[in-house]
């Protein structure tokens, strides 16, 4: 049997299976009047819900031009997003959530009421409370509390909205990162950047619509799935670029191959793919063709855009870049350049924020100080630089981690850790947003006196996703993709737009 016959046979078998599945489902419904009744009621009640007037369905997916710029359902305030993720989860208690009460409890045994029914990643037995490892002060007209660890950022608090009561249900890094960026703690869902580029395409066809930049010496724990496209067409996955060496791997012509020859070979591959498409009609093949073409165009544009060395000296000083090295500040400057050039979604991950205190590098008062210093200047420069270029009104900037840190000092497996550190904490942490139609100088949500639980303004990952989509012009409940027989959405069955922080 030839390969083709084998393939055809498989196709036929799959088709028969599908028919059978249809049959059995129909049979089941016919047999159970209850089921039919419930279905009827479902569709009746469905119409009783929210009205969907003025909402047109999403633009159709065009496999030949998957990244062409598309209109959102509503006129959005933001046209692009820069998401700064501090992988490992920074401590809200050392940066934004000032808790003087916790200072008084420093060194005392943790009250049992805080431990009952709780699960921690590492804390066992009775840990000690740990006071804030920083001095705090109020800044700006909005009088926002920021610690001494972020001397630069504290000058721009009037540009941002703080969410003080963010909560998650995942206390390990990978699932929590996945939940925040894909809407599910398990693998397989498309990331937020994929959703956004699927829905909006991108303005610049010579660059990817969704760029990922990592720093800190390691990938986020969730791995590349955290910028994966899941069940969306693969053209929407994040394209990882580098701020050191070639911006995109293999973008240079191989030694001995001229640009013309490269073009000729890409044309040949595309021609073969085109024939393949005519035979099988698989839209993924068209996506592949367009990706080859974009890769060729990127050979010209990417090195120019990705090269931060062309920026003037004062910009480098403003961001605190380290030319020639892979670092967060370089990535932040690159993010600004990319957004300026029309890239839709830039996702940064900076690794190394996991402040357990079992070694100096992850101690709150040693290694983490270096982390604070490595991001403070760059983030501040980003907000100010976007602002002075008139980009902040159209660019939504988000900063945060995947969860927070406990008010207790970590005692790994019941033993006191040698350095000051905190365990993973899911109930309350801080994320801030700026630009893109978000309120300036605003704080939403409040935690209790030790920063353990939210007492107001509690939001979860779905709410943040819903808000980001809203600012881009989507109703997160209507923005869906059909997969495995049902429409999927980024926010699953949750998500409320945080209207309070929208200007």
């Amino acid at each position, binding site marked *: 049997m030839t390969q083709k016959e084998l393939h055809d046979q498989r196709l036929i078998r799959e088709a028969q299976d599908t028919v059978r599945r249809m049959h059995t489902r129909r049979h089941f419904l016919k047999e159970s009047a209850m089921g039919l009744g419930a279905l009827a009621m479902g569709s009746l009640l469905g119409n009783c819900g929210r009205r969907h007037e*003025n*909402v*047109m369905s*999403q*633009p159709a997916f065009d496999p030949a031009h998957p990244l062409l*710029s*598309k*209109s*959102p*359902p*509503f*006129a*959005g*305030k933001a046209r692009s997003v820069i998401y700064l993720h501090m992988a490992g989860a920074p401590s809200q208690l050392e940066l934004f959530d000032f808790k003087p009460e916790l200072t008084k409890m420093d060194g005392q045994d943790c009250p049992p009421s805080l431990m009952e029914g709780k699960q921690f990643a590492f804390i066992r037995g009775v840990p000690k409370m740990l006071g804030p490892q920083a001095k705090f002060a109020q800044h700006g*007209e*909005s*009088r926002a509390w920021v610690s001494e660890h972020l*001397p*630069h950022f504290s000058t721009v608090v009037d540009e941002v909205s703080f969410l003080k009561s963010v909560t998650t249900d995942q206390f390990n890094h990978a699932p929590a990162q996945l939940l925040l960026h894909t809407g599910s703690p398990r693998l397989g869902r498309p990331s937020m950047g994929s959703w956004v580029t699927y829905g909006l395409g991108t*303005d*610049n*066809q*010579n660059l990817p619509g969704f760029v990922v930049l990592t720093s800190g010496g390691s990938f986020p724990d969730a791995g590349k799935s955290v910028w994966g496209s899941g069940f969306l067409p693969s053209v929407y996955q994040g394209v990882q670029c580098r701020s050191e060496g070639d911006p995109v791997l293999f973008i240079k012509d191989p030694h001995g191959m001229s640009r013309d020859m490269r073009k000729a070979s890409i044309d040949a591959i595309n021609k073969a793919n085109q024939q393949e498409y005519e035979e099988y009609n698989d839209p993924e093949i068209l996506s592949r063709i367009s990706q080859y073409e974009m890769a060729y165009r990127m050979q010209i544009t990417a090195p120019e855009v990705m090269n931060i060395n062309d920026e003037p000296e004062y910009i480098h*000083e*403003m*961001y*605190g870049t380290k030319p020639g090295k892979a670092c967060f500040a370089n990535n932040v400057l690159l993010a600004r350049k990319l957004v*300026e*050039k*029309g890239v839709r979604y830039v996702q940064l991950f900076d690794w190394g924020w996991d402040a357990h205190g079992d070694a*100096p*590098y992850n101690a709150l008062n*040693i*290694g983490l*100080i*270096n982390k604070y*210093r490595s991001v*403070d*200047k760059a983030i*501040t*420069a980003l907000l*100010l*630089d976007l*602002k*002075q*270029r*008139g980009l902040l*009104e159209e660019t939504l900037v988000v900063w945060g981690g995947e969860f927070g840190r406990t008010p207790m000092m970590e005692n790994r497996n019941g033993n006191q850790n040698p350095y000051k550190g905190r365990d993973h904490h899911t109930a309350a942490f801080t994320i801030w947003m700026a630009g893109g*139609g*978000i*309120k*300036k*100088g*605003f*704080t939403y949500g409040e935690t209790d006196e030790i920063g353990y639980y939210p007492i107001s303004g509690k939001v979860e990952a779905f709410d943040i996703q819903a808000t980001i989509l809203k600012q881009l*012009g989507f109703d997160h409940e209507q923005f869906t993709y059909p997969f495995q027989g049902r429409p999927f959405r980024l926010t699953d069955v949750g998500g409320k737009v945080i*209207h309070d922080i929208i*200007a």
Partner: protein
Amino acid sequence: MTILSIIDLIAPFHPVLVHLPIGILLLACFFQWLTIRNGYAFLRPAIPVALFWGMIGAVVSCITGYLLALSGEYDETLAGRHLWFGIAVAIFSLIMYVLHRLSINERAARWLSLVLVILIAITGHLGGTLTHGAGYLTAGLSTEGKKQTALKPIPNIQEAAVYADIVQPVLEAKCFSCHGPSKQKGKLRLDSPQSILAGGKDGKVLIPGKADESEMVKRILLPIDDDDHMPPKAKPQLTENEVELLQWWVGSGADFNKKVKELQVTEKVQPVLQTLQSGDKLGKTLTDVPEAPVAKADEKVIARLRQAGVVVIPVALNSNYLLANFITAGPMVDSTLPLLRSLKDQLIWLRLDNTPIGDSALDHVAALTSLRRIQLNNTNITDKGLVKLKSLTHLQSLNLVGTKISAAGLLPLQKLINLKNLYLYQTNVSRNDFNNLQKAFPSAVLDTGKYHVPTLAADTTEIKF
């Protein structure tokens, strides 16, 4: 004294007790209908028993409810209606009980039981309204949440009159119903400056400058369960922001004429005032799409522009208004720009930044009179060309970063009163020009950029370990 204290003791049990007759009477009605089926005929004797004890429960509820109403914490008309419906339930269940004892016909009994259910439902709903406030059933459906603020966004908060625009609307929404023209509980009226100052039965309610000692603020700040708390528990409460504003007004002298900018804005009230500002200066208006409908743009022109590498799309799926972005249009911008003219009614956002256009291109831009937002940053335009843009009367945001524009070139645009954002970083506008420009564009945010993030010693040092 003893009787009084007994009343105080049993009255609060009313909200608990009422559930007994509700449950028992509903059960009786339910049985009444169940007995239609022969299989349930054995339940028939239980119906009068349930009716009897339900009736007793209803009577007890009526008595405790009456005592509770005496406390005066509740809205009189609503409490009165609730009371009378409660009494109706008690009487009606008694009638049904008697009819059952006289063995009336089954069908009549069934329909009577329906009436009873309706009476119970009305009474229960009124009771719910008393304890949870009006609209409690639908509160979960609205996105506003339980506490609704009486305050509407104010276009220019600094110019707003504190009493007329902020304090009075709050009092009107939350206090007037009992302390206004129709009712004067405690002989207090709050609907005019004179009556506020006059106070009520117990004397003055307002001590200007001393919020903590003013009765009307003190009452609001009491715990909600306190008998003296205002507004009464069952009534719509003031939101935190409203309380903050009221305290601020009384604390800063309770002046009835001053504007916001004339009072000392405290740290606490600053963010609250900010929430009243309708939109902030940035943001809101910028993305505003005109509400007036517009005809669909010529598809052929759009197709030709796209062919030339210009992004042209509707700003939203259901809108005919367009945005255009020349970011990938290449060096031939000057030849494609004239095409835009036929989109002049639809085009509201235009990005021409980082293109090689000069002053001559602005002739075409000047014709696009619907434009709300335009990015001309990093182009070769000069003051000479900029003058032409004074025809863009709807313009809200103008980005001139990285051009040779000077302050003198901007002044002819001062008739563009809708201009909210002017980006002037890396232009020939100097810091000395700033004050003059701000006067020329009083309602715009001028951003000359050049922000500096100093390098601190800590920025370049690492802690070694």
